[in-house]
């Protein structure tokens, strides 16, 4: 496999991060050797996953051929823009999706089967690779095409080891009346950038849930195109930062057709010196009369040095719309903490109770098959911010 030179700006950025091997000016996507694959399987087992597809150090490893194929799905998607290298709302720039043109082959999923979740594990394989010169970048490239009328459930897990980097692109294309429930779970110990691009045709429905710690210099960048009349998008997030995390989520929803609907609700947590910026950007085109959009974010600051920003933005080109947005940032309610402690709960248990209460509605309406994973992710996130 050929080595790719990292751009200078990226090298500098990685150096700024203080990542151990950041000074290395190159990375080499690693071939998924038998050993790496075996290890990835073991990790999947530890997470209780049954992946149909693993992306190990950038290379897809298909375990369930009935769910996955290996075309080059990005060929006709390259025109989709990813204008995100340096988001202005975040403290630091970071790369997102440098791998549209680089990186290994992509995999495609066909999740339209019997309501079971098709599980995907992105794993960087860092522990099995010599770490002294090579920066591990796991480049997951995933295409989820949904045929007309198809329903599917996909759970994407990204997990790796400290110092590794996941840099993933997920492209969804939902044809007429298709429906996709998509869980995106960021497991601890691994920093990622994630680009999600979705295009929805007439009557298609995409429900997304994002959960976990957005570690290190995480960036999520999602671009959702509501292309067909009556298309619907929901995004619910329960995400947190801690330690020195400096992360950002940017979500762009473009209403391009009549009677499209979008609903974005995100719960953010910031502990210690963690920083998290959230931007929900909704554009409603002139052609999108009768559309509805909601962006709501609620943040909890758990320590003095923590920082949260939330910016809903609307660009509306037609009068015939209903839009609402709201953003709150607060601290744990002292009176509520006292109430719980006066009932015998220790301080930690009381804080845990309030955090779970705060994140509770994120799983509202969630597909049953995703629910246990989401519950686990929420538990992990709460324990992480409680237990620095």
């Amino acid at each position: 496999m050929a080595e790719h030179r990292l751009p200078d700006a990226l090298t500098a950025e990685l150096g700024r991060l203080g990542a151990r091997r950041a000074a290395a000016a190159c990375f080499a996507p690693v071939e998924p050797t038998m050993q790496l694959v075996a290890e990835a399987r073991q990790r999947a087992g530890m997470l209780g996953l049954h992946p149909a597809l693993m992306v190990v150090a950038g290379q897809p490893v298909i375990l369930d051929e009935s769910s996955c194929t290996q075309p080059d799905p990005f060929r006709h998607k390259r025109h989709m823009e990813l204008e995100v290298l340096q988001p202005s709302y975040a403290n630091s720039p970071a790369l997102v999706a440098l791998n549209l043109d680089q990186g290994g082959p992509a995999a495609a999923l066909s999740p339209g089967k019997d309501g079971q979740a098709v599980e995907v594990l992105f794993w960087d394989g860092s522990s099995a690779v010599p770490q002294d010169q090579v920066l591990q970048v796991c480049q997951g490239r995933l295409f989820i095409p949904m045929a007309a009328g198809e329903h599917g459930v996909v759970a994407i897990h990204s997990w790796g080891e400290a110092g590794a980097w996941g840099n993933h692109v997920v492209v969804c294309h939902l044809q007429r009346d298709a429906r996709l429930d998509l869980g995106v779970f960021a497991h601890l110990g691994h920093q990622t950038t994630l680009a999600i691009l979705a295009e929805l045709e007439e009557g298609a429905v995409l429900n997304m849930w994002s959960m976990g710690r957005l570690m290190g210099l995480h960036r999520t960048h999602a671009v959702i195109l509501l292309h067909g009349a009556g298309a619907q998008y929901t995004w619910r997030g329960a995400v947190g930062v801690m330690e020195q995390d400096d992360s950002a989520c940017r979500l762009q929803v473009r209403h391009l057709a009549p009677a499209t609907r979008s609903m974005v609700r995100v719960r953010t947590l910031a502990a210690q010196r963690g920083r998290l910026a959230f931007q929900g950007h909704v554009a409603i085109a002139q052609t999108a009369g009768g559309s509805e959009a909601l962006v709501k974010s609620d943040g909890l600051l758990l320590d003095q040095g923590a920082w949260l920003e939330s910016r809903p933005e609307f660009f509306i080109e037609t009068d015939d719309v209903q839009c609402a947005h709201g953003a709150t940032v607060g601290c744990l309610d002292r009176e509520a903490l006292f109430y719980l402690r006066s009932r015998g709960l220790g301080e930690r248990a009381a804080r845990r109770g309030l955090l779970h209460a705060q994140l509770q509605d994120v799983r509202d309406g969630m597909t049953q098959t995703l629910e246990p994973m989401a519950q686990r992710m929420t538990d992990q996130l709460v324990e992480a911010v409680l237990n620095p």
Partner: protein
Amino acid sequence: MDALLSIKDLKVANGGRQVLDGFSLTVGAGQIHVLMGPNGSGKTTLASVLAGREGYEVNGGSVTFNGADLLVLLPEERARKGLFLGFQHPVEIPGLANATFLREAYNTLHEGEDELDAADFLAMARRLLQEVELSDAFLSRGLNQGFSGGEKKRNEMLQLLLFKPRLAILDEIDSGLDVDGLRLIAKLIVRRRNEGASFLIISHNPQLLRYVAPDAIHVLYGGRLVVSGGADIAETIAERGYEWLGNAHDQERQGAVALAGSVGNG
């Protein structure tokens, strides 16, 4: 009778103001004491300091509960030793199901005993809900979320029945309750008392006092207890308000009259 709660010369400041200035009170096991006093006289302050709410400056005096120094304990430790505060304003926590909260608190407060499994707990909680005349729906709702004033107070009483504290401080438990609610709560208080529990009830409500027949009624004024006595005190206050106590209190300070009795107290 051995004192369960013994407050001696307690001094508490809040926001630069000396709210309690030499407050003393003793509550024995199985007794019901009532604390009255005008708005802002420091009743909630006292309840809060006893339960361990932060933000108060205790600058004198001592409190023992069941023989141990209460003021050094964390709020949760006080609760585990059997002290319960029925809040004047119970907190709403959306997202935390009442049942989940009740069960976790129950298991914490009854640590060392066999943990109840979910089904047994639910059965018990349902039975107690009936006692406080709330429907089962209140278990699945968020803790106090959208409860009316009276429903919140019933939920406080539900906790009292569930946790079985040795001493319950009920801060204006009657506010927001209708007549039937009041009678119900009085009945439950008396029942718990007959099982040996003690109460410090903060209330102005003569009807509640009539129902529970307290061992003593105390009036807090100017940061200390100025009168302790029987039911007649409540009636005098109902008739004459708290004004006359002010005069008596000032005279007492000047050493002219000693009004503060020790009827039923100690």
